[in-house]
């Protein structure tokens, strides 16, 4: 009995000891982290505030006028300093992008300036003495108008800093005639007839030389693009530049007009990596009519991935139709935001150029095509209608097995040559297939390449036969294999005829784009035709493409970290075709 009690006692003590140890462990373990109620409260406030500002219409004003700073101020003040906000505005083109227009050598001018003989008038009030006024008087007057320059001592530049255009009344200037500062665009000419004046950009002035660039098209495009887009401010900054004079890395988008610019681009492309370095972050717009010779001559053009389509037109292109690709729909959205439609645009194609965004040359993704018009794509079909009977035994290792050509049945095993634009002429077998003689009457055929029409490193087409209707790719073209049994008046029952039919779209592109390049890294490029004078609809189309190029995400504010995220979506003036999205981070 005593032993039993002792034994039980030992057990009880052991249990007590274990429990003690456990209690120590539990007592020393920290309590689980407390709920962060401040984040809970911030989320409520952030959601309320975002919703309230949307309801009052203030959010729409911030979007419309691009006032990210105002949004931050309102948030901080209304939350009594408890909340800060930063965020991204999406689906609306970035504003305040820097767009540079390349000028050709003949569009860049330097002209002599000299001291004036006399200039009693408005300018005399701006300067201390007349020796501080110089003009273009001694040069033949361009557009029958002189320019005057003064040192007015403002903060824009040292030395000569202001330009006045002297229309009609010598040294008397209206507010439209100046002052203009370096970087400004000005009208040179005193007529309202567009053929009698031009716009230029004032680049530089020294004691002896005035430097300026042609800018008439730039000014007209600027007026169109800087109109509000669906009521939303989209001010972009426009400039002109020569590749040799300026660092293009400062620009967000650069525009090259006329195919004459290809010489300048190619020189830059060959001599340094400025263009490639620029393309990594910036976007490029080509306003050019292109020819096959341009693609042959300029490696830059080939490196972009754009392709020349060496086909005649089945029907000449006219009009414009926007594609329903993602980029096409984005550009269409912007065009609509500028109160324009595809039917307002009168741009030509500017050459047989394909964006070539699909794996094969004429794909199905573009920005815009001709409303009507098509390529004669049958020109790219590769045919042989005179394939000849050969001995199957000579090709036993290449041909698939079939009862149909056993015992040398005529027409069931033929050979012909096909020439592709990879530069290769290859032999192809035309074989009737069947595992029974009865099946052979169904005339199921296959084509088997004996040599690969693709260049080394590309898909080897000799690996398998191609049944009637099967797709294959040779070079940058996509084909469908086609064998004939009978066609019209010709009897092709004997395996004489086979064809590789090109399967690309036959639509002719009017606006091309690339989102990646073949010869260098980059993200965005577009091409439209060049015209000496664009219509209002054309400029809106160019503007819409420009908006796509500058991108549609704008950031405002900055927070090192954030505790809450919300988003708000809406449409300006209830328009739903261009919705905005604010992705907000709060702290």
């Amino acid at each position, binding site marked *: 009995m005593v032993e039993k009690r002792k034994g039980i006692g030992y057990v009880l003590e052991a249990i007590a000891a274990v429990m003690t140890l456990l209690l120590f462990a539990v007592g020393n373990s920290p309590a689980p982290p407390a709920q962060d109620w401040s984040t809970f409260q911030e989320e409520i406030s952030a959601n309320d505030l975002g919703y*309230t500002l949307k309801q009052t219409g203030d959010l729409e004003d911030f979007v419309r006028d691009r006032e990210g700073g105002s949004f931050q101020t309102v948030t901080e003040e209304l939350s009594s300093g408890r909340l800060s906000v930063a965020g991204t505005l999406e689906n609306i083109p970035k504003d305040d992008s820097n767009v540079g227009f390349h000028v050709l050598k003949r569009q860049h001018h330097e002209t002599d300036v000299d001291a004036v003989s006399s200039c009693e008038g408005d300018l005399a009030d701006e300067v201390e003495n007349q020796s501080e006024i110089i003009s273009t008087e001694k040069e033949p007057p361009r557009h029958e108008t002189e320019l005057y320059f003064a040192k007015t001592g403002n903060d824009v530049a040292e030395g000569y800093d202001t330009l006045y255009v002297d229309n009609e009344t010598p040294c008397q200037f209206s507010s439209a005639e100046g002052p203009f500062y370096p970087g400004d665009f000005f009208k040179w000419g005193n007529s309202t007839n567009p053929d009698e004046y031009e716009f230029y950009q004032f680049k530089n002035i020294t004691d002896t030389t005035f430097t300026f660039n042609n800018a008439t098209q730039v000014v007209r495009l600027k007026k169109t693009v800087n109109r509000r887009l669906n009521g939303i401010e989209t001010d972009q900054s426009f400039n002109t530049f020569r590749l040799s004079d300026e660092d293009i890395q400062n620009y967000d988008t650069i525009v090259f007009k006329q195919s004459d610019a290809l010489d300048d681009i190619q020189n830059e492309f060959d001599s340094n990596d400025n263009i490639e370095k620029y393309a990594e972050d910036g976007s490029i717009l080509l306003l050019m009519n292109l020819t096959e010779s341009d693609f042959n001559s300029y490696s830059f053009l080939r490196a972009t991935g754009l392709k020349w389509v060496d086909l005649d037109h089945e029907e000449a292109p006219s009009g414009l139709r926007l594609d329903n690709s993602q980029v096409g729909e984005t550009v269409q959205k912007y065009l609509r935001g500028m109160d324009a439609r595809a039917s307002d645009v009168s741009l030509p194609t500017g050459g047989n150029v394909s964006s070539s965004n699909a794996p094969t040359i004429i794909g199905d993704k573009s920005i815009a095509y001709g409303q009507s018009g098509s390529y004669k794509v049958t020109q790219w079909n590769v045919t042989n209608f005179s394939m000849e009977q050969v001995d199957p035994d000579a090709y036993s290792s290449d041909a698939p097995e079939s009862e149909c050509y056993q015992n040398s049945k005529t027409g069931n095993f033929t050979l012909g040559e096909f020439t592709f634009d990879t530069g290769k002429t290859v032999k192809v077998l035309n074989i009737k297939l069947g595992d029974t003689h009865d099946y052979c009457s169904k005339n199921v055929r296959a084509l088997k390449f004996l040599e690969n029409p693709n260049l080394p490193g590309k898909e080897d087409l000799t690996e398998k036969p191609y049944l009637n209707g099967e797709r294959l790719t040779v070079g940058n073209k996509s084909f469908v294999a086609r064998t004939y049994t009978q066609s019209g008046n010709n009897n092709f029952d004997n395996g004489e005829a086979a064809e590789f039919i090109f399967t690309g779209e036959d639509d002719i592109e009017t606006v091309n784009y690339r989102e990646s390049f073949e010869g260098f890294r980059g993200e965005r490029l577009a091409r439209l035709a060049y015209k000496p004078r664009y219509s209002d609809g054309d400029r809106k189309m160019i503007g819409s493409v420009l908006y796509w190029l500058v991108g549609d995400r704008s950031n405002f504010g900055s927070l090192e970290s954030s505790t809450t995220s919300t988003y708000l979506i809406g449409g300006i003036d209830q328009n739903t075709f261009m919705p905005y999205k604010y992705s907000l981070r709060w702290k």
Partner: protein
Amino acid sequence: MKGQINIEFLASAMLYLIALGAVVTASSAVLPAYSQETQKAELNLESRSTTFKLLTDQGRHSFSGGGTNWERNNTTRDATTSLGITNGEDFHLDRGKINALRTVGENYFNYSQFREVVDVDNQYKFNFTWTPIVHTEESFTKGKPPTSPNIDEPSHPAYPSVDNEVHYGSTTIAGQNYRFLVTARNSIYNATYVSSGWDFSNAVPLGESETLNVYGTEYRITRFQNKDDDRGALLLLGKHLKTFGADTGEASTVIKFNRYAVMEGEPVRIGVWTW
């Protein structure tokens, strides 16, 4: 003679006392923290649901067939069955309903009635501040005001020395249009001239924290927009509407956060204290 207490008993007793001490120590550390967290959770959750109800409901009274205009008179206020302060649209407040709230007073919906009708476990205080936003994104160069609208610049002696870019805009307060010029010194926008028309000849500059008087009601200039990209494009006014509820006194756990709603097209900040 052998002792009554043996060494095993002593050891067990010691173990027992140590275990008891550990349990007491652990509880005294964990239980208060647990209790406080529970209280915070309750305050936050109740506060959110109570304010959500207030901001999404018009309220109801049961007098004479019932209705949503509980604020109309003493009879309807006394017959209030549910409290809400909207005008029928979620997060859009009715000024009359806010005006009808008063912490104490017989001719108002008072705090005691609030606690009874809303049936809350905790104490509350609300602070309503109306914060009209005036957009002044348009601008002109000092000395060259626009002709449309036809702005007459101030004659005040402080005006000639302000920065060149002057912003302007307008808003409606208490049914009356007011026009604002916003001026800067050393690139900081810090003063506004206010007029009922575009003639600011007799206007005087008002800075932050100064007040604008509209038909006897004072609105405080609370903030000018001086963040990058759009300096001067906006200024904020503030008008305290109402404080309603108990005093926090010496409450140990008070939670406070802001809710927001719209009244007459402008934001309202509602400070909410709960304890």
